[in-house]
């Protein structure tokens, strides 16, 4: 009798274990989805799109695996590998977040550095405009340069808006373009001033 009870207990325990193992990994899946959402919050999809898209695709693939297992009869379901994959994906997405933040900060710093140089250059242009020969002969040229400096000021305003909106790559294009012009103005004014001194 004792022997039979032990056998029944063993069968029941095994059944519990089998049913336990065959449960879909809801918590792990939720964790992976939450990780993807938090990566989106730091714009990983924008700043490291290749890595982000690859992980998003891996998560989709795991979702397919989960449903494939669910389609099977309950006693043949096995979520062990899926669980491991989900844990690995969640870890990888977690690592993606600081990477995206780092890339974003890097691009932002680059733009802000170039913008700082541009702002200084524009100020230098303005200072040189005051020092430039103000006679009748230079009036038209100075007016033309003043117009260009006004265009550069407008450009800086646009760049700041782009930075505020987080569009650092477009901001970088604009900043580089404006920098070239600001440098050209500086050179033109410096030459005019040095000519007068000679």
């Amino acid at each position: 009798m004792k022997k039979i009870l032990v056998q029944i207990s063993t069968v029941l325990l095994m059944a519990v274990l089998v049913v336990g193992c065959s449960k879909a990994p809801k918590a792990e899946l939720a964790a992976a989805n939450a990780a993807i959402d938090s990566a989106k919050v730091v714009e990983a999809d924008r700043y490291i799109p290749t890595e982000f898209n690859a992980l998003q695709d891996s998560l989709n693939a795991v979702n397919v695996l989960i449903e494939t297992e669910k389609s099977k009869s309950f006693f043949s379901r096995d979520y062990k590998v899926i669980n491991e994959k989900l844990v690995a994906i969640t870890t990888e997405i977690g690592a993606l977040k600081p990477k995206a933040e780092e890339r974003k900060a890097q691009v932002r710093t680059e733009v802000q550095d170039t913008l700082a140089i541009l702002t200084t250059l524009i100020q230098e242009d303005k200072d040189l405009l005051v020092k430039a020969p103000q006679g009748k002969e230079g009036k038209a040229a100075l007016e033309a340069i003043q117009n260009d400096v006004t265009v550069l000021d407008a450009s800086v305003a646009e760049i700041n808006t782009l930075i505020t909106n987080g569009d650092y790559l477009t901001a970088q294009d604009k900043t580089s373009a404006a920098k070239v012009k600001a440098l050209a103005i500086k050179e033109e004014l410096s030459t005019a001033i040095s000519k007068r001194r000679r």
Partner: protein
Amino acid sequence: MHFHKIRKKLFFIIGTILLLVIIAWVVSLFFQNPPTEKIEAGRKAIAEAIKEDAGVFSAPELNLARKNWENAMTDWKENNDKTPIARNYDRTITLADSAIANAQNALKNSIQRKKEFRKEIESALPVLRSKIAFIKTAKEKLPLNHNVWKKFTPAILKMEEVESAFKRNDLFSAKKNLESLTASVNEIEKQTTQLLTNYFGSYPEWLKLDAEMRQRSKANGSVSILVDKFSKKCIVYKSGRKIREFDVELGINWLGHKIQQGDRATPEGKYSITSKKAGRNTIYHKALLINFPNSADRQRFNNQKANGSISKNAVIGGAIEIHGGGGKGIDWTDGCVALRNKDMDNLYSLCSVGTPIAIVGSLVPLEKIFDLLPH
């Protein structure tokens, strides 16, 4: 005996369970297979499309593919929640098929559009560069503060942006800015061409005036002067031959006729020297006063006043001279013609009151000045 009964009962239960499992397994053989392959194919097709930047170049098609795939997954999940016998994957498969077709479409479109964008940008950039070079050349030759140039610096900045985006392979941004850049450059080019074409409409008259100046110097064996505004030259004819040529600087708005006082334009037409000034009589070393306005200038002024293109209170102006103080490398006068002082000495000595002088736009035709002029 009791033990034997229990064992028999147990074997019966286990046997029944086993039998039920076997029956369930046999029945399951007749169930519809799960749509794993189709769903997987959809996922892979979407991933491929994303890799080819379909999110940027074929977003509507890609979004449709994603939506259909997600709906297929939802349908599959809902079916999986049902008992196996009640599952029907037909809709899941239809949705997955649509997702595959949409994703393949997105991939194809994306590749095609990227190719088209690249080709369009690659062919547009040299044309724009050439147009900008033409405008730059014109800008260097024409008055600095003409309204046409106000849009030029923003266009140059935009051009740099497009090139920068193109270099970092951001075809979408490059293409987006290319449209507004092309419109802006085309507009400036059109205005520049129009400005030049309108101005050079008087070219035959300028040639006639030049011929007249040569002829008059030949007939009298005397000196006559011609100022070519475009090439910024003052030519001295004697006995029908060119004997001197000096560089000149003009009024800030030298392009076109002088219309009224304060427009800082250098007049065009046939004049003569009415007075020679030197010493305390001029602040510009030496000066030759001309008879501006002549009758043609007055007629033009009156016509423009009558048709309202200038103010009724406008004054025609005067005191146009050929004087010294030049050599500044820029057009700076209020409408006079400025020469370097040593050149002015030379010219002054050659001229007398009554010496004829013609001021013309150009002796060189437009086509020769601007070989960049687009056709």
